[in-house]
């Protein structure tokens, strides 16, 4: 039932040891994107960006959700192994590009008002701040205090990045204080809702979706 989950079996190769393997958080995000398929197709996105693409599972799936429409799908990650894993996972029909960069720093203001679909499954685990970015592997999940230290750097940029009809999908756990995130972006002109939730072990995961409020 539903669209096929991208094949990420190549992640078992040693060169991809530091790359985050799809897990419950990944699958919840896939489900949320699939549920929004009618909206996304009607939107006709031209440029999609996934920040911290890891395995590339979400980027690949997003392209499937948008088919048969075509969009440029840019995947960024600071881990070079993740950029290569993403390239392998997205090696199918579509316009996929990978870039090794932090958030969307490499694009300066070129993506301002231009991102039609922005997706981020951030490092959301609550850890001591010192553990953020310590290793390539940890960069995938270590989120510092409240699990928000990485996300909080991106949040102020989101309103600048989104196109007029743009939408932003974000994974959170309760410890990240999703209501606070929603409030923060609301003050900056974006309306946010929890579109999907799931309990996975000790984590209560949510997908937040943001669009521009009129």
């Amino acid at each position, binding site marked *: 039932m539903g669209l096929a989950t991208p094949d990420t079996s190549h992640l078992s190769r040693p060169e991809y040891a530091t790359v985050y393997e799809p897990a419950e958080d990944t699958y919840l995000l896939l489900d949320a994107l699939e549920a929004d398929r009618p909206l996304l197709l009607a939107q*006709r996105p*031209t*440029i999609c960006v996934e920040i911290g693409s890891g395995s590339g599972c979400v980027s690949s799936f997003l392209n499937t959700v948008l088919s048969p*429409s*075509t*969009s*440029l799908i*840019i995947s960024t990650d*600071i881990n*070079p192994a993740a*950029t*290569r894993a993403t*390239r392998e996972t997205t090696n199918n029909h579509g*316009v996929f*590009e*990978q*870039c*090794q*960069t*932090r958030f969307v*720093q*490499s*694009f*300066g*203001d*070129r*993506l301002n008002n*231009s991102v039609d679909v922005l997706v981020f499954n951030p490092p959301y685990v609550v850890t001591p701040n010192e553990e953020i970015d310590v290793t390539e592997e940890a960069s995938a999940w270590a989120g510092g205090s409240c699990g928000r230290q990485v996300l909080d750097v991106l949040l102020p940029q989101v309103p600048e990045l989104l196109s007029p009809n743009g939408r932003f999908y974000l994974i959170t756990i309760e410890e990240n204080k999703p209501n606070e995130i929603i409030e923060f972006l609301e003050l900056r002109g974006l309306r946010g809702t929890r579109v999907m939730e799931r309990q996975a072990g000790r984590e209560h995961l949510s997908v937040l979706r943001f669009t521009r409020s009129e």
Partner: protein
Amino acid sequence: MRLITHNMLKCHVRNCDNPDKQFPLRFKGAELEQVEAERNDEFLVRMIPRLDWRALLVTAKELGIELPENIPEDPENDDAFLQALHTAILETHVKEGSMVCNGCNHEYKITKGIPNMLLAEHEI
């Protein structure tokens, strides 16, 4: 890396902020590969407003790629234009090489078709 992505990359070294110099990045030792891809005119037309045409022309000239100076009034119906655009931005891949900033001379490397835009601590 396709030229469509290169058209969006800017130098972001600290204090490098001359818009005329930090973009587009100049290729150095670029190894190109043309990979044929199915043309999607509807997508190309949607993409046109997102491109920086001036920068794309500079880059195309640098690499010896044919591209018209001006975007036609009615691109949807200009087959020759769409074909040239498609070939330039979607079929031209840079596999290896580097991109140099004309402002600060910082070099960003491209490896196996993926650009590394990360900076060292002192450059941020």
